[in-house]
């Protein structure tokens, strides 16, 4: 996983609630076995039916073509569990998303792919949404070490759990950590096979 310590660049605004994973990556753009899905990000909003770019969609405007972060309304990433949504964002170059709340599975998928999904107070999000829509004000600096997001006018403290912050900063692989606990898993399964034999099948 690519470590995330410092991020600098344009913040793009999606001022709507309940942006679901079908909107982030439409089904017809997930039909290859790949994680290189940036071109399909927000496919139905970014392109018209002939495949031409929709000029007034934020990521098609000159100031936000290289956006590194998004700010959106509540419940961002709700819906389907497709991790393709996170892969599409990451492949496009988005590494952080700010919203009042997130879909649970989407949030877990972000953490697994080195993306920060940070919850911020509604009033802070409202300010960020306004600022992000101004080409001259939309640049942000994110510093994970200090746990802070800086805009042109303010420093916003981020509440990130220490474990998530460490994981993002180190880019460490959680599976390796859990494999280190194989002995615990073995012991658990051995004990359970006796207590609840119907749960297990012959290997």
């Amino acid at each position, binding site marked *: 996983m690519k470590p995330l310590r410092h991020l600098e660049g344009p913040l793009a605004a999606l001022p709507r609630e309940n942006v679901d994973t079908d909107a982030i990556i439409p089904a017809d753009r997930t039909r290859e*076995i790949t994680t290189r899905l940036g071109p399909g990000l927000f496919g139905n909003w970014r392109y018209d*039916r002939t495949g031409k770019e929709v000029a007034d969609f934020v990521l098609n405007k000159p100031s936000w073509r290289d956006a590194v972060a998004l700010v959106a309304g509540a419940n961002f990433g709700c819906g389907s569990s497709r991790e393709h949504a996170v892969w599409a964002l990451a492949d496009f170059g988005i590494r952080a998303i700010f919203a009042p709340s997130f879909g649970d599975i989407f949030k877990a998928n972000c953490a697994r792919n080195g993306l920060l999904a940070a919850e911020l107070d509604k009033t802070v999000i409202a300010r960020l949404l306004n600022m992000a829509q101004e080409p001259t004000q939309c640049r942000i600096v994110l510093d994970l070490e200090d746990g802070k997001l800086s805009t042109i006018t303010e420093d916003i403290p981020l509440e990130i759990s220490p474990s998530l912050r460490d994981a993002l900063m180190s880019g460490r692989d959680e599976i390796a950590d859990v494999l280190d606990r194989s002995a615990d898993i073995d012991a658990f399964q051995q004990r359970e096979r006796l207590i609840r034999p119907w749960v297990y099948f012959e290997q």
Partner: protein
Amino acid sequence: MGRTLIDKIWDMHRISTLPDGRDLVHIDRHLIHEVTSPIAFAKLREAGRTVRNPELTFATIDHIVSTRPGRTGETYARGAAFVQALRRETAAAGIKLFDLDSDAQGIVHVISPELGLALPGLTMVCGDSHTCTLGGLGALAFGIGSSEIEQVLATQCLALHRPRTLRIHVDGMLPHAVTAKDLILAIVAQVGARGGVGHAVEYAGSAIRTLSVEERLTICNMTIELGSRIGLIAPDETVFSFLRGRDYAPSGAAFDRAISEWRGLCSDEDADFDREVRLRGDEIAPTVTWGTSPDQTAPIDGVVPDPGTMTTSDQSAATAALRYMDLQPGMPLDGVPVTRVFIGSCTNGRLSDLRAAAALLEGRHVHKGVRTLVVPGSMRVKRLAETEGLDRIFTTAGAEWREPGCSMCCALQDDSLSPGERCASTSNRNFEGRQGAGGRTHLMSPAMAAAAAVAGAITDARAYPPKGRLAECGGT
């Protein structure tokens, strides 16, 4: 202090608590399908890792496969690579695959209860957010992403924060001709599409207790539409008798032993939930969605709401939804024309759902210009339906009888809407473009979808009493 059912199952599966406060939770059953698992297998191999417990992992093909009669894994050409990858990976890892030629193939959440793979008190995961369906049997089941699939393949565990708990009570009995689908749509409307985020849900109350297993699966299925990953119902005799004799369920003395433990799977009287919500079951009417979020619903005799009367936060979403759906405030929902009807999915693709649709369609005909797809949830559902002659009722009525799969629920194949097309659908999501770019989805029960097929418009199924021989069994 008593414990909730959710906490009891959680504690049974907690291997340890990690330094960061998350619990390492054992996963008893891992279900996989062809769309979200190939990447996980590829990454597993890249990292030089193997599948820890292939015997606890089961696979099927459902999402990106054609449902045309006579289909193969290649009929929908763009799905072929996914199908082949799943066949290759499961064969190499020694994982049981219910392939297209198996009599047990079907939608992943339809087959696992059918086969007795889902059992009370198990922890279960699958790379599909509607895994919460299995809570209908009392399993703690939830959807995961591909990286989590990889982790479960490698370790049979996940590191998770214990969820907060939400109990939804439904008191009173559902009125005649009001179904489990209407109930869950009403619950989603009341709690909201993000009302359950961060919570695991337990459904309780007299209206829940009297539901059949298939109806409970429909209720739990749409828990994710509240934003909750997990939803369950305490298992009882209804569940135990459903499970007896199923392929992978314990049998004989082992079954009795299991039941004696399952009887303890309920929340203690004095258990403390983080939140509780109450609804009256007897006040619920047949319900349809009018918007692009599953909480945007109205009773069938209602009208499209006026965003002007809503709170500011709901207003902009409702306005955008009405624009997308091409509906005006104040329009009656009864009478909105449709050109497509979809009966199927893991929400409503089981035998009782097909019976309800068939009872309405028997002796009637699908409206001119409406294309109606009836897609059984699994091979077993299909075979049972054919034994009862339901397939002939559908085809005589002018509907198509298809092979099992997700079909128009996710539209990952060619079962999809064209831009602007409007569909009466028994699936679970009415998001923009969910059934095809530009397509417009109205969620409803199987009987309501069948009524829409006959009328060529959304309408009240209660105006179409069964006319055929299915009338005698009440069309349930």
